[in-house]
């Protein structure tokens, strides 16, 4: 039995507040371990004036169902308590949190592995696209071969 909480939102979020609520929920569900990953918008030090903003586009409808399937797949592979995936879209500025994954399990190995798996799949199987804006213009972020290669670990 796994509680899956998927959130796709343009609103900013406070990772501490979210993790605190998740930890309470996990504890109540009998978990002994919580693992959390938070992704942040990094500045582009090489770019003239740095990154002014990042815009994330997504595919409403498919995004939620893809994240749900990835989380359900994780719950079949490991013994998990609650799972949370939050991903923002819209305009973000450097240092802002983009996304968070939190997993819970009785012992830490399941939660660590599940969080790692969720991140690998989320990066190249959930329909999000990042565009970076600098003084020189706007560029779509290219997918990395290493992100695709990372999936082979889980097959």
């Amino acid at each position, binding site marked *: 039995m796994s509680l899956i909480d998927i959130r796709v939102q343009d609103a900013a979020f406070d990772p501490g507040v979210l993790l605190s609520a998740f930890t309470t929920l996990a504890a109540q569900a009998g978990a002994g371990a919580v693992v959390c990953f938070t992704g942040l918008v990094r500045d582009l030090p090489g770019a003239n004036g740095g990154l002014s903003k990042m815009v994330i*586009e997504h595919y409403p409808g498919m995004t939620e169902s893809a994240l749900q399937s990835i989380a359900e797949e994780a719950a079949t592979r490991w013994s998990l308590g609650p799972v949370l995936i939050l991903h923002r879209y819209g305009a973000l500025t450097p240092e802002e949190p983009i996304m968070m994954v939190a997993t819970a399990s009785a012992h830490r190995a399941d939660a660590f592995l599940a969080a790692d798996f969720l991140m690998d799949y989320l990066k*190249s199987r959930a329909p*999000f696209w990042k565009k970076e804006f600098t003084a020189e213009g706007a560029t779509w972020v290219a997918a990395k071969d290493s992100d695709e290669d990372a999936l082979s670990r889980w097959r």
Partner: protein
Amino acid sequence: MDVLYFAWVRERIGLPKERVESSAATVMDLVHELSAREDRYALAFSDLTALRVAVDQQLSDFDAPLAGVREIAFFPPMTGG
């Protein structure tokens, strides 16, 4: 069916979504139909290795059949996280 475009595919074609009446049997047939319409489509579809396709919101392949399909989306490889 509805055809959706995301990221640079949307920018290159110039719209996010359109209704397409087509008797294309597969995604690839639809790509050929669209590419024959106008240069902006041909340009967007010029390198299919740079594109991904979703059929009814499930990641799919260019040889997927289109019978009964309501929604197709074309986009570049995803960059979430």
